[in-house]
């Protein structure tokens, strides 16, 4: 066994850029390529997809991503771990086999991780309260679209233990996708809290791909990022004893240093002394970054306590519709005309008999991102945006239609308007399930070479 393992990131969201994934697969010298593609609610959409067509329900970009990375991974002996199985890991593995065939490659030996889908279990389980508001889950059960437990790194470890070249999962906690290969490669145990901490902090830093290497960072004149256009994805070199050094694809753009690492360390963290994953309770209050060379940073000081006795479950549910429309205004008195346009739309919707539990009027260019504040100067151009929620699809659709109607029946000089139509809202809430109620399973597809 090697004393080091190199685990790299190939995606941090379902729509993440694919070219850097191909680059790291080709030039990163990876042992494992991890592609993380599930946001909180995306698995709910995939579950709906599966209910319409049982062969679907995996991440829509699966084929494209696999085509981009599989030839290089095969040539370099890099094993792939991905949660692109979403609501249908079995079908995803079948699709990967099809793509391999289309590329003229031997059929891969894949392992799928099952057991995260706990929708039936949650339906039958009384007394669950949502973590967000403490309300009984029963309130949203009739509208539930999906319920998935965040499985841990042990599920990925077990899948790799089959010898599979590719591991396809549904919901697994993001850092756990990266910790799994380390558990498999080094045989770390769940009692080994220092190693779990090191591997989990590495996974947390890698899980958002380019956000570690200069994405989400550049501010011209203040914080520069060299060749942001050619941003490279990151990897971690992890040693048997838990040393973690971060770097990125050779000859790629971006930067990886103390500043980028610190921003990403705190990304989506609440209490830094207790970041709960299925594998441990991570404490990053003692973390420090040591520059070991250009674009090479060692992570030190992570600590952990033992994992909790429950799994977090994200429940996706239908929550009505949102209608959105936008219209542009410019020149003298633009803001006043935009505000008049908003009043007119609201009045017309009211006269049509529509009532909205929530409506939001924004002036893009003035108050749409940071809210309304006194003393903000009036811009030369402004864009009116109206969004409203309704349980009635027709009422939601009317919002964009009335905004677009301002073209001919609104204030002077209303231009460039459009309706964003209607979006069906899939919202999420979370509950905890006792650890012993959730069991992961591994199935293999294809044969070992």
């Amino acid at each position: 066994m090697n004393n080091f393992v190199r685990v790299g990131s190939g995606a941090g969201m379902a729509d993440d850029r694919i070219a850097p994934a191909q680059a790291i697969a080709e030039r990163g010298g990876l042992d494992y390529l991890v592609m993380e593609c599930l946001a909180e609610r995306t698995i709910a959409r995939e579950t709906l997809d599966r209910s319409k067509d049982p062969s679907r329900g995996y991440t829509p970009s699966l084929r494209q991503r696999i085509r981009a990375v599989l030839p290089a991974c095969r040539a370099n002996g890099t094993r792939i771990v991905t949660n692109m199985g979403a609501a249908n890991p079995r079908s995803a593995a079948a699709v990967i086999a099809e793509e391999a065939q289309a590329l003229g490659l031997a059929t891969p030996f894949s392992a799928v991780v099952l057991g995260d889908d706990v929708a039936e279990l949650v339906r039958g389980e009384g007394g669950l309260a949502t973590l967000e508001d403490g309300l009984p889950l029963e309130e949203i059960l009739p509208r539930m679209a999906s319920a998935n437990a965040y499985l841990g790194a042990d599920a990925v470890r077990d899948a790799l233990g089959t010898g599979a070249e590719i591991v396809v999962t549904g919901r697994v906690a993001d850092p756990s996708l990266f910790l799994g290969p380390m558990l498999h490669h080094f045989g770390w145990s769940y009692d080994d809290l220092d190693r779990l901490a090191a591997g989990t902090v590495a996974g947390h830093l890698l899980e958002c791909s380019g956000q570690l290497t200069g994405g989400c960072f550049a501010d011209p004149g203040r914080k520069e990022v060299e060749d942001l256009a050619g941003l490279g994805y990151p990897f971690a070199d992890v040693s048997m004893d838990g040393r973690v050094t971060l770097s990125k694809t050779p000859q790629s753009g971006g930067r990886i240093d103390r500043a980028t690492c610190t921003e990403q360390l705190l990304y989506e963290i609440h209490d830094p002394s207790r970041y709960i994953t299925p594998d441990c309770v991570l404490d990053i209050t003692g973390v420090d970054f040591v520059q070991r060379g250009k674009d090479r940073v060692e992570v030190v000081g992570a600590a952990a306590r033992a994992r909790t006795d429950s799994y977090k479950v994200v429940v996706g549910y239908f929550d009505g519709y949102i209608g959105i429309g936008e219209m542009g205004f410019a020149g003298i008195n633009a803001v006043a005309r935009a505000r008049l346009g908003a009043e007119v739309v609201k009045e017309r919707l009211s006269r049509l008999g529509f009532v909205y539990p929530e409506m939001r009027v924004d002036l893009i260019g003035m108050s749409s991102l940071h809210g309304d504040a006194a003393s903000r100067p009036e811009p030369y151009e402004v864009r009116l945006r109206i969004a409203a929620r309704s349980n009635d699809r027709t009422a939601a659709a009317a919002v964009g239609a009335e905004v677009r109607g301002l073209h001919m029946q609104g204030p002077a000089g209303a231009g460039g308007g459009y309706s964003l139509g209607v979006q069906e809202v899939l919202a999420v809430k979370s509950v905890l399930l006792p650890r012993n109620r959730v069991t992961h399973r591994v199935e293999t597809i294809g044969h070992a070479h």
Partner: protein
Amino acid sequence: MLTDQAPARKRVYDLAHARAGDKGNTSNISVIAYDEAAWELLSERLTEKRVARAFHHIAGGPVRRYALPKLRAFNFVIENALGGGVTRSLAQDPHGKSLSTLMLTIDLADEDRAD
């Protein structure tokens, strides 16, 4: 209100960099000081109360501040900040990714100690 001529002008932007993340209806914003002097000034003046005031028109709060001295960083956790949560918000930026830049606009120069 402070003018641009004031020599003591200290926006968070001049002292630190920041990134915003989301979970449900909660925004977390890191504030990372560029140096020790900036860290000390931020420690004293960029209080929970000061941040809550800067975000009061978009976030219900509460606001909690966690310190990471080794990294000269703070993590601000601002509840009820994302229009009911990323998945159901009506906002243009439901994740609140742009809220880090609101944090950086906070001007500490003319503030009395906030609490």
